């Protein structure tokens, strides 16, 4: 029996790509719904701690547009992503182009060149495997995107940080 991947794994298949894989205890039709229906997306597509997701619009069909925005509860500052769907093959494959919307937050990412995000959903014995491959316009944009995520990840990862820092002394 295959072992379930209960924690996300991240790798760098090339200089401009990031690959994230993760398994879920749910049929893939449901995991697909959670990736395509706005009222479900905003329940898990978390922004930084203390940010909510007031805008989540999805028109899931080839050429259809989407728009996501997060807002800081404290300052009201906003940022987000928008783009369009390039390939929609429910419930197996979703490809979308993503532009960064710096809003009031700013950021170095160049919004003129989209990131192409391919998400594959496969199901084995009731377990859905998710594979997301993000292809950025350049290595610099990829590195900036990964660094932005790092800031948020640190909010959660103090126990990991302790391991990381134990070699510092």
């Amino acid at each position, binding site marked *: 029996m295959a072992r379930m991947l209960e*924690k*996300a*794994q*991240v790798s*760098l298949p090339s200089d401009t790509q*990031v690959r*994230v894989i*993760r398994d*879920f*205890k*749910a049929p893939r039709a*449901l*995991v697909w*719904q*959670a990736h395509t229906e706005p009222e*479900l997306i905003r*329940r*898990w*597509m*978390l922004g930084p701690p203390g940010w909510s997701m007031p805008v989540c619009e999805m028109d899931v069909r080839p050429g259809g547009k989407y728009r996501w925005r997060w807002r800081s509860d404290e300052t009201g500052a906003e940022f987000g992503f928008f783009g369009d769907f390039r390939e929609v093959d429910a419930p197996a494959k979703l490809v979308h182009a993503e532009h960064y919307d710096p809003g009031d937050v*700013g*950021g*170095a990412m160049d919004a003129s060149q989209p990131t192409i995000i391919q998400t594959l959903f496969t199901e084995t014995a009731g377990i859905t495997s998710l594979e997301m491959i993000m292809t950025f316009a350049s290595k610099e944009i990829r*590195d*900036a995107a*990964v*660094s*932005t*995520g*790092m*800031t*948020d*990840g*640190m*909010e*959660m*990862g*103090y126990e*990991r*940080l*302790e391991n*990381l*820092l*134990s*070699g*510092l*002394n």
Partner: protein
Amino acid sequence: MTPDERLDATFAALADPTRRAILARLALGEASVAELALPFNISQPAISKHLKVLERAGLISAGQDAQRRPRKIEGLPLGEATAWLEGYRQFWERRYAALDGLLGQLQAKPPKSPRKRH
């Protein structure tokens, strides 16, 4: 500093979101105080104060160039690349843990049954 004091200083340094954002920026390469102040809505003296805390914790150091004194990241023992990617992994894991919860709820309540809430 004793190892414990060092760890305390490091955690205190990391307890502030601006300082974590500065570290994330420096993970991409060295930068001057002016360059670091740019993305934040705070003054250069305020940035300098944050940098002093990070320096004291040994997380960053100041470069040789007397004019710019560029700051760079220091001493991530697992290697910057690993730490950098681990932070990103945790960013996604936080979302996917929330998705696990949502999928559990959706399966406990079949979507076809009428909502009882009012």
